[in-house]
């Protein structure tokens, strides 16, 4: 269809507006990046000025920040906890969702509703008692916290997987079981591959949550171990003693991995988030 002159003009105005908004959306990140190369006394008062010969300090903020908070340890720990927890969540909650969808009893029905219920309970409700339980059971270490994340992430994940399992026709599983597959084989060889799209959604939603999570790891393992958000909050330290140069550099180092991850898998991330939201 031919576009009228009027729509063409309208679209030009909209394009300009969108361009402006895009710059506005990117500006905060670029300003932090710019300030990470400035001396600490030239940041708070004049954050919108480019580094000059006088204010430019090269990578000093990065080296001092990395040393202060042990950034690479925090990064390694964040990667370990996120990757392990998400893998464990995807594997076990998909199995559980399949089980409670295929086995129809009063008990599995009740379980389903408790999982759904847990999704609306705010973290503060169980924050104190969960931390105490984790301490008592010696789960206050990087391995133990994976179990905590499995428990805490299971509400949404079981819910999303269950919704998807319901849409898989029973006949497929019945056919392979008649052919001699036991339930373990039919789940791993037939059902799990079919769950791939929703597994990607579940994985992405959980990565976004666990990677950025602050309070849960602080309370459970924070006295001995620091993830990236904990390390950044720790940098703020006591009253007014903040090294804002190091802070800028660490903010950049915290953002860069997520943005790289995002640029590589953005189609999956956006589609996954939409799918998760629409099903939820």
């Amino acid at each position, binding site marked *: 269809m031919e576009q009228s002159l009027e729509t063409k003009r309208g679209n030009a105005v*909209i394009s300009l507006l969108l361009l402006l908004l895009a710059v506005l959306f990117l500006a905060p990140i670029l300003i932090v990046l710019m300030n990470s190369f400035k001396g600490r006394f030239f940041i*708070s008062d004049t954050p919108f000025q480019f580094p000059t010969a006088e204010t430019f300090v090269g990578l000093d903020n990065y080296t001092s920040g990395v040393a202060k908070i042990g950034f690479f340890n925090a990064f390694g720990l964040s990667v370990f906890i996120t990757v392990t927890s998400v893998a464990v969540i995807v594997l076990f909650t998909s199995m559980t969702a399949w089980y*409670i969808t295929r086995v129809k009893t009063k008990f599995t029905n009740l379980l389903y509703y408790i999982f759904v219920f847990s999704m609306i309970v705010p*973290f503060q409700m169980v924050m104190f008692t969960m931390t105490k339980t984790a301490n008592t059971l010696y789960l206050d270490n990087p391995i133990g916290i994976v179990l905590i994340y499995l428990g805490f992430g299971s509400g949404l994940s079981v819910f999303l997987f269950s919704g998807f399992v319901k849409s898989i026709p029973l006949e497929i599983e019945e056919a392979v079981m008649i052919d001699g597959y036991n339930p373990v084989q039919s789940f791993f060889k037939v059902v799990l591959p079919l769950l791939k799209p929703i597994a990607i959604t579940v994985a992405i939603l959980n990565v*976004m949550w666990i990677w950025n999570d602050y309070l849960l790891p602080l309370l459970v393992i924070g006295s001995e171990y620091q993830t990236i958000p904990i390390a950044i909050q720790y940098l703020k330290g006591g009253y007014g003693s903040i090294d804002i140069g190091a802070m800028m550099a660490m*903010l950049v180092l915290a953002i860069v991995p997520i943005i790289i991850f*995002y640029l590589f898998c953005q189609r999956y991330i956006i589609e996954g988030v939409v799918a998760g939201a629409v099903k939820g």
Partner: protein
Amino acid sequence: MQKNIQKYFALFALPTLIAFGISFVVPFVLGVYLSFTEFTTVTNAKWVGFSNYTKVFSDQDFLNALWFTLKFTVISVLSINIFAFLLALLLTRGIRGTNLYRTVFFMPNLIGGIVLGYIWQLILNGILFKFDVTLTFSPTYGFWGLIILTNWQLIGYMMVIYIAGLQNVPKDLIEAAKIDGATRFGILKNVTMPLVMPSITICLFLTLSNSFKLFDSNLALTAGAPSKQTTMLALDIYNTFYGKAGWEGVGQAKAVIFFVMVALIVLVQLLITRRKEVEG
């Protein structure tokens, strides 16, 4: 087939159920119980009836936080959804670069609350410096700072959900309305809006619960300053637990009240908007 699968309960369901029990079910039940007791560790709890609850409602910090959170939630939910919907309208007109804009607007959503807080602290303090004040000079600045921050974080997220909804509106329906002489606003109000009602339900749900439960960015941006006046509910509960010795029981009672409020708000919203979906 059901009987056959049931034999594998221990493999398929048990790991998730154990983790879920440890990190959610037990802490939840224990949390409700402890809100009626006085305790410092879980084991020395002494039954005190409703006295923690009466203390909550005479605690000025809690009432301030409640009022602040309610105001914040109303304004952030409205602003985020209006901007996100408008952006979604702009990005579904087939303008060149649509995918790029979508990528940019969505990006802030991947950054965690702690990091977001420090990014905006830098920028807002930089602007306010020109007026010789800082972000923690008045609670009004902190309030609008948090509004800007959450808008920046969530607009892109809601936008992609609205875009998915708008793309499901059949084109011929809009053409038909145009031929019938409907105005642009009339089409938006009477054709588009009712059809994207499911997206509106989801976005309201997500923004409501995100705003009401905000913690990380609140802590990083102002940490409640000046003098606790920008403390939101989640942060107030945290401060009661870990900042006031002997107030653990009151903290737990606050957490229970917080949970009930979140549940009520979310359920009422879902009921209202779901009904609109059916009518539409």
